[in-house]
């Protein structure tokens, strides 16, 4: 368990001075994850996206640690190279320090275009932490659907319309896909449960080999809610079991870290966001039912996996 008094003494590795929207989930994810690295020497990276664009506008940078951005789909491969360079130079005695490595990607850069690069890096076993800040769409370029977009969400490339109720497909279960690589540590986290997230980050940084954190990172621009409501909405995602908090060790050992006392209906989460507004119009009851069914099925499946 992370101790907030101790965390308060840790150095800030990001900002102030970045240009993300106020209330942006990505910066909260990054700051909590970076706390998990403690005082360790650290190299950070990220994929192209809001987070990169808003933290590195040349000639300024919000990064107080060495940082690399390469392209959209290759954050994992890039950090593989950095980490391997480190191993090579360390082995040769040219570097003495212990250094940790972390890289960030949004859901587009992770679930979709960057999946191959991530998979390759995980399979090869590079010793780094990959953090997906999942805001469920391509937010940087104007809210286009991604593989992480939930069913029924209205996006600019899967808009709700006269004959459409938003994205028709299920979202991809990236956490399970990553776990199938049997890497040492995988966890799903949310900024609403800061202690859980920081503790999991600590575990991820301590893992011997690749570690992966999938963190719910809301986007008030894309989700259509008042910017100050972010953390509360993230909490509702957890309490409806839309976004369960759990961890997986070595691809097999599942552990649920938080079970809501009373599992809230998914509509509690959907109704807080403008992107699902159309679902509450008459005629869409079946869609709401099927979304609830899917959340229930996934939660049941997770309960079974964690009981094994």
């Amino acid at each position, binding site marked *: 368990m992370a101790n907030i008094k101790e965390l308060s003494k840790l150095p800030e590795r990001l900002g102030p001075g970045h240009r993300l929207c106020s209330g942006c989930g990505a910066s909260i994810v990054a700051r909590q994850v970076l706390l998990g690295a403690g005082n360790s020497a650290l190299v950070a990276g990220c994929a192209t996206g809001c987070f990169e664009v808003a933290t590195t506008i040349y000639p300024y940078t919000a990064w107080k640690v060495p940082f690399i951005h*390469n392209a959209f789909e*290759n954050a994992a491969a890039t950090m593989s190279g950095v980490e391997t360079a480190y191993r090579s130079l360390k082995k040769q005695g040219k570097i003495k320090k212990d250094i940790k490595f972390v890289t960030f990607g949004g859901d587009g850069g992770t679930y979709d275009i960057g999946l191959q690069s991530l998979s390759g890096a995980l399979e090869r076993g590079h010793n780094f932490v990959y953090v997906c800040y999942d805001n469920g769409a391509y937010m940087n370029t104007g809210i286009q659907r991604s593989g992480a977009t939930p069913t029924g969400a209205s996006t600019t490339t899967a808009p709700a319309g006269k004959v459409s109720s938003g994205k028709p497909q299920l979202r991809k279960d990236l956490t399970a896909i990553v776990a199938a690589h049997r890497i040492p540590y995988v966890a799903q986290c949310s900024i609403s449960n800061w202690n859980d997230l920081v503790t999991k980050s600590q575990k991820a940084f301590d893992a011997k080999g690749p570690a992966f954190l999938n963190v719910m990172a809301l986007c008030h621009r894309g989700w259509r809610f008042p910017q100050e409501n972010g953390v509360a909405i993230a909490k509702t995602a957890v309490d409806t079991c839309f976004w369960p908090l759990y961890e997986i060790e070595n691809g097999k050992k599942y552990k649920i870290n938080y079970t809501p006392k009373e599992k809230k209906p998914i509509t509690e989460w959907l109704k807080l966001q403008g992107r699902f507004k159309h679902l509450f119009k008459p005629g869409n009851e079946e869609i709401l039912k099927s979304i609830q069914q899917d959340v229930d099925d996934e939660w049941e499946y997770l309960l079974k996996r964690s009981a094994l």
Partner: protein
Amino acid sequence: MNKKIIPLTGDQAVAEAMRQIEPDVVAAYPITPQTEIVMTFSQFVADGRVKTEMIPVESEHSAMSACVGSAAAGARTMTATSANGLALMWEIVYIAASMRLPIVMPVVNRALSGPINIHCDHSDTMGARDSGWIQIYAESGREAYEHAILAVRIAEHSGINLPVMVCQDGFITSHSVEGVELFDDAAVKKFIGEYKPNMTTLLDVDNPVTYGPIDLQDFYFEHKRQQTEAMKNAIDIIPGIMNEFNKAFSRDLKIVEEYMMDDAEASIVVFSSTAGTAKFVVDSLRAKGVKAGLVRPCLFRPFPKEYIIKALSKVKIAAVLDRADSFSGCGGPVFSEIRSAMYEAKQKPELINYIFGLGGRDIFPNDIEAVYKDMSGILKTGKISNRVNYIGVRE
């Protein structure tokens, strides 16, 4: 120095160069006809003959991405590729150059799909000519070996800091066995020296820097301009490094090789292995009293304009042989650049273009002889029926 000449394919020769260079990191994916480089080098790693950390990536895109990460972290970094592999790297090839990372990449030239074809032409690297990489083209496997060693010094020179492609012809030299003189390991190590990055690296955690920031309207242009400046520096700096190389290893590498050009009237300009065939033709024509010459540029990026002007100002006519088409309707990529360079020459020869050898189509001595014959016909009649011609294609 002990002379050690052993039979090697061009790929094996390049892998031997990599063994002697002993980069800190190699990230590579296999693709025909480059594969033998990766396989041979992997065996060196497996046998503990090099200290290199190998990243057996899942694609060429990730190979170049990992190379960017590794080089930015301050490690001497190499990869190798061909054709579609280079095309898959494309996006990151540009990024590597823009970050001024001294990555060295042997490229075994192969036709770019489509249609898919695994044999030699230059469409892959010609397509990458504006990516900001230095490009060197080797006539033989032996020369590809030498260029790989030379390239390390060029890439890492503080006045250059650009990545380098070391190109050789797929199958023609990559898979043909020839006697290659391997230099002494220690002599190679001495020539390339220990790598000391010219920039703050990612692993210097006490001096944090940001690599790959977003560069908007207010700075992007200046950064591209600096890349051009680095290329301009390179054309001035490379001769010195080449001279050092030639002295250290008793070789005679040149930026632009002139063969029988002193009194030549008609010349062929051609890259890589085809120059060997053309030299054979020049010799036989010379025996018949024909004043034939040959110009072989080893460097295409930066473009050796002054060298080309100097060489071609001597002749009345020159034929540029391109192993790639550019679909411009005005000839191949090498022809376009040479014609552009010669526009500012005082002595302008007539220039014609021949596209040849696409997808590995063989070119024979009699094809090249026919080009010289065409040129002598033009010199006699003053008439050019086709500015751009195609050799050995069914029309």
